[in-house]
């Protein structure tokens, strides 16, 4: 059993077999993380560079932990304090890092498509850790892992993604992955924050939250990205919160055994109330725990694919 993909650039186009293999493998890595010594020697001798051109807490720490728990060597790069601030291009930066003999690059960048560009110009295995408003595939995978862990399946699961769909890479990766795995996906948000012709993705689009939540199993709540709200798409945070903020009394139409998810960081009192965020049906912290296991599975599976490519 091996992955067909060589890089993880996005979940668009990744087939159900590959997604299932990653999610199945992650179950074993979750067990590794529960051991008293949560570390295995699998990626000894593999060097991974974490190239973060945008700020990140969770994703960055999660990748670094996943790499270290697999015994890989890791190097961290952040744009501030690097030659990027002297005007070096992305390609030159990566070519120079590659000249120091590395195997994989985990990249977060504000420009959509930058991981795809690197995959074409570089030798290394590339993993997208978020490219602008395009995709955040490992978040999509860990969200699917968390849903599957609770319900035992993804097929037929009713998932509603609420919030700023337009600027959300988490939404896009969730939509691609969940549709591939046979879930029913809806999106809900103010019309100004929903891309035009969204229905063509194969999702239902709602602007009324109560209507969207009717009979849903999972609500994945997106962060209102204050840093991306330049052009007055929202009248005010207060208005957004009143219409789309998830509070306890909006959950009454959900299915029994429903689940609340949020990729973090949360704006408490804006898109989610503290009461909902801390309730037993919310799996926001398990999502973070699962993220490490899912990233370990991905790194392991992609590293073996590398060895094979070199042999050919």
């Amino acid at each position: 059993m091996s992955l067909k993909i060589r890089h993880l650039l996005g979940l668009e186009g990744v087939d159900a077999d590959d997604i299932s293999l990653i999610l199945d493998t992650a179950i074993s890595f979750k067990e590794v993380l529960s051991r008293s010594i949560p570390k295995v020697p699998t990626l000894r001798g593999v060097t991974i560079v974490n190239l973060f051109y945008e700020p990140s807490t969770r994703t960055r720490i999660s990748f670094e932990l996943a790499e270290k728990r697999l015994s890989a060597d890791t190097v961290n790069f952040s744009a501030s304090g690097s030659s990027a601030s002297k005007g070096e291009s992305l390609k030159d930066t990566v070519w120079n890092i590659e000249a120091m003999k590395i195997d994989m690059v985990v990249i977060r960048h504000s420009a959509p498509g930058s991981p795809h560009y690197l995959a074409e110009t570089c030798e290394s295995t590339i993993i997208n850790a978020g490219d602008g408003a395009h995709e955040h595939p490992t978040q999509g995978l860990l969200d699917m892992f968390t849903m599957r862990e609770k319900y035992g399946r993804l097929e037929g699961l009713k998932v509603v993604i609420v919030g700023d769909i337009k600027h959300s890479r988490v939404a896009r990766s969730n939509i691609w992955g969940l549709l591939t795995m046979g879930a029913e996906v809806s999106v809900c948000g103010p019309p100004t924050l929903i891309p035009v012709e969204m229905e063509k993705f194969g999702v239902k689009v709602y602007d009324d939250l109560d209507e969207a939540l009717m009979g849903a199993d999972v609500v994945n709540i997106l962060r209102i990205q204050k840093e991306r709200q330049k052009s007055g798409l929202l009248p005010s945070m207060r208005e957004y919160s009143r219409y789309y903020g998830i509070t306890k009394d909006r959950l009454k139409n959900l299915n029994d055994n429903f689940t609340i998810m949020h990729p973090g960081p949360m704006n408490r009192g804006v898109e989610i109330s503290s009461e909902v965020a801390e309730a037993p049906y919310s799996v926001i912290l398990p999502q973070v725990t699962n993220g490490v296991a899912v990233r370990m599975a991905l790194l392991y599976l992609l590293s073996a694919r590398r060895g094979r490519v070199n042999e050919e």
Partner: protein
Amino acid sequence: MTKNTAEKIMDSKSIKLALNRICHEIVERNVGTSDLAIIGIRTGGAYLAERIAATLGKIGKTKIPMGIIDITLYRDDIQDKLDQPLVQETSIPFDIGNKIIVLVDDVLYTGRTVRAALDAIIDFGRPRSIQLAVLVDRGLRELPIKADFAGREVTTTQKERVEVHLKEMNGVDEVVIDRSGRGGV
């Protein structure tokens, strides 16, 4: 696999007798069953470990702790394998500290699997000792590893393939040597 290239060296009865003898040797060596725990290496070793733990439980009139280990993440050839092995779950539902661990596998060959299993076990704690029980020892070691208990010792070449079929996965208990030249365990 064609019939004329495969030779059956153990059948259901001889496997049963061999496992019984191994159990009695384990009890003899350790003067009873106290502090014993059995860990089987996936997949064949896990089924044999279950059988050994059950028999030892009867002999000692006590429940013997049993675990299963998947050594994929500890392999020394993980980067160069063409077909990537599926990582399966490891389950050691007891504290291995100060236990006498009997590690169980179906075939002992190069010793690399056992090496990986030893590393994996030690990541769970510090057992008092680890002993090795195998159904078939086919020789051709590449590491300084030796079985403490062996059901059958056979002389083989690298071109031959030793296959352990067990009821739990193949519906039948038997050990066959395939001489068609594919090699492997």
